[in-house]
């Protein structure tokens, strides 16, 4: 029996010996981010494939944030989650961005978007997958570079400045914006709106940068006598960088009159373009009028001249010397009509009567639409003084003129308020 017992004991010892050696020993250690359950079988994971950015990609700073894309890895167990690392060195010792546990994307690709990276620097990125308790190998590090930052300062407005009165087509001008970094060609976007919020924008235009300053003149009239706002923004389209817009600058268009486009409404008078070419040697100081017949339809256009305007005989009457005409301009249906009105006699001041609301048109000897013109209270009417232009060129002298003043029509019989009496 001793032999039998030895055999049994031997078998038991053999079993214990083998049991003591029982273990799981992969040929390669598996580095796992999450510790696998003891004795659990871990899966095998391949490397994902770096897709984007391409190796050595040059990325404009404006194109940040950078998106990293990998083709999904393959795992024998579980579902992949991905780790992305971005570093400033090839050894990934100085990581500037790390995203772990990124869920696998659909369509065979997994994508992450990085936070903005410091511009003008080189970076390296790699990624790996984890699944089934195993972290796969990292992709080879790929380099990409972020270009330098481009900044553009706000351009400085030159004009029209806030509160300015302008013509219907003012020139909007800014001093060219200063910039930092390798900026591309700069353009300037001018916005004009009826509200400081620039919503809606009435007119917008983008123009190339000029020398030292850049300007824009609208190609059509802006709304007249309306409060308007403008601003300008410098734009680097190459780098998709814009400056902040200038502050909103308010201005008001007056009903500016372009003489060259005025339809002359008096039969025997110089045309608009002809008058436009006359030297402007006088300046209107004031226009005071009242269309109230009870006030005689008084019209006083005070002016000064830098030249000596000669007089001429009124239709050959030497005793009646005239040296100037008042001009009136009416905006009818969006078109300026105008012509010379009353003569001014030497030594008789600058006021004329008979220019009542309902008389100025019919009594003016106008043709076309101006003959029936009866200005409404508040309607903007233009005024000018010139050397004799009525019955021109018969009574022609030196063909000079004043500027044009536009102001609302007044008629105290229709409710206009006039501060004091009209100065005569």
């Amino acid at each position, binding site marked *: 029996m001793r032999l039998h017992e030895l055999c049994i004991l031997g078998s038991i010892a053999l*079993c214990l010996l083998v049991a003591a050696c*029982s273990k799981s020993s992969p040929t390669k250690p598996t580095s796992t981010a999450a510790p696998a359950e003891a004795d659990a*079988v871990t899966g095998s*994971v391949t490397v994902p494939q770096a897709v984007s950015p391409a190796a050595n990609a040059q990325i404009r700073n404006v194109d940040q944030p950078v998106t990293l894309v990998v083709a999904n890895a393959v795992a*024998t167990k579980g579902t992949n989650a991905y780790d992305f690392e971005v570093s400033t060195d090839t050894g990934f010792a100085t990581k500037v961005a790390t995203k772990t546990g990124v869920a696998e994307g659909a369509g065979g690709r997994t994508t992450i978007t990085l936070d903005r990276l410091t511009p003008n620097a080189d970076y390296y990125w790699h990624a790996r997958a984890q699944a089934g308790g195993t972290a796969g*190998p990292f992709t080879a590090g790929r380099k990409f570079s972020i270009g330098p930052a481009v900044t553009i300062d706000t351009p400085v407005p030159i004009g029209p400045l806030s509160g300015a009165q302008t013509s219907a087509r003012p020139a909007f001008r800014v001093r060219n914006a200063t910039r930092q970094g390798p900026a591309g060609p700069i353009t300037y976007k001018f916005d004009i709106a009826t509200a400081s919020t620039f919503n809606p924008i009435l007119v917008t235009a983008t123009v190339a940068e000029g020398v030292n300053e850049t300007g824009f003149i609208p190609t059509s009239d802006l709304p007249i006598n309306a409060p308007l706002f403008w601003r300008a923004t410098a734009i680097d389209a190459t780098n998709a960088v814009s400056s902040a817009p200038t502050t909103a600058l308010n201005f008001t268009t007056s009903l500016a009159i372009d003489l060259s486009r005025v339809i002359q409404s008096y039969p025997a008078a110089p045309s608009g373009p002809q008058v436009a070419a006359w030297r402007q040697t006088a300046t209107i100081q004031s226009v005071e009028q009242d269309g109230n017949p009870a006030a005689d339809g008084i019209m006083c256009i005070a002016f000064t001249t830098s030249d000596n305007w000669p007089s001429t005989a009124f239709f050959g009457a030497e005793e009646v010397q005239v040296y100037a005409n008042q001009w009136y301009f009416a905006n009818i249906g969006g078109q300026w009509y105008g012509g010379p009105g009353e003569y001014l006699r030497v030594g008789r001041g600058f006021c004329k009567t008979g220019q009542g609301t309902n008389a100025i048109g019919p009594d003016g000897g106008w043709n076309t639409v101006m003959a029936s013109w009866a200005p409404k209270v508040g309607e903007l009417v233009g005024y000018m003084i010139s050397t004799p232009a009525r019955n021109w060129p018969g009574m022609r002298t030196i063909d000079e003129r004043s500027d044009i003043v536009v102001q609302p029509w007044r008629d105290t019989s229709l409710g206009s308020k006039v501060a004091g009496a009209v100065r005569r």
Partner: protein
Amino acid sequence: MRSLLVLMSGAIVLSGVADAQTRTTAAPPSRAVEKGYVEGVAQSAFGNVTTQSYGVELGATVRPDLQVFAEFGKIKDVADTTFTGGASTIASALSRLQPAAVGFSARRPVIFVAGGVKYRPPTTLKVQPYVLGGFGFATVKNDVAFTLGGSETSAAALAQYVTFGSDLSGQSTKPLLTLGAGVTVPIWQTLLLDFQYRFGRIFADEQGITVNRAGVGFGVRF
């Protein structure tokens, strides 16, 4: 298979009963008394795959109808579809990750050792039937190899493409249950043939491995 396990377990229990009986009744006078045996075994193994197994079995007689035995052996491959499928998956991925043609082999050879009892019911026949049951341990090796461009590639070279988990690499030693039956045929003097069947169950992680072996042993009694 479950019924087979029940039958085997029953046989072992019966052997205990028979053992009790032999303590009260004398063994047949014609029965030859042997101290033990040793034999080499060659088997066909089938289960997940059909392959070969070989080993050595030895035993010692405790009583005329009861022996203790130990066996050592190697089964060439017990890879299942999960294992080969995993290797195939990695091979497919490798073909996308690098330009060379990819080949692979995936085997799970097993080295095992087990011990137990063998019951040999009394018989008047010249041949001796038996049933046996035992426990032991099996070391299962995950033997996966890949070729790139026709050349076998080292694990270090593959490391840039794949990290292998314990599903496709390494080895593990796990408990083994073995049940079996057979018949011993004396052929000349002390030489014998052992026509045998063995059922084995390796209690591997997550998914156990079943392997059946059927073959013949050639040995000697002493």
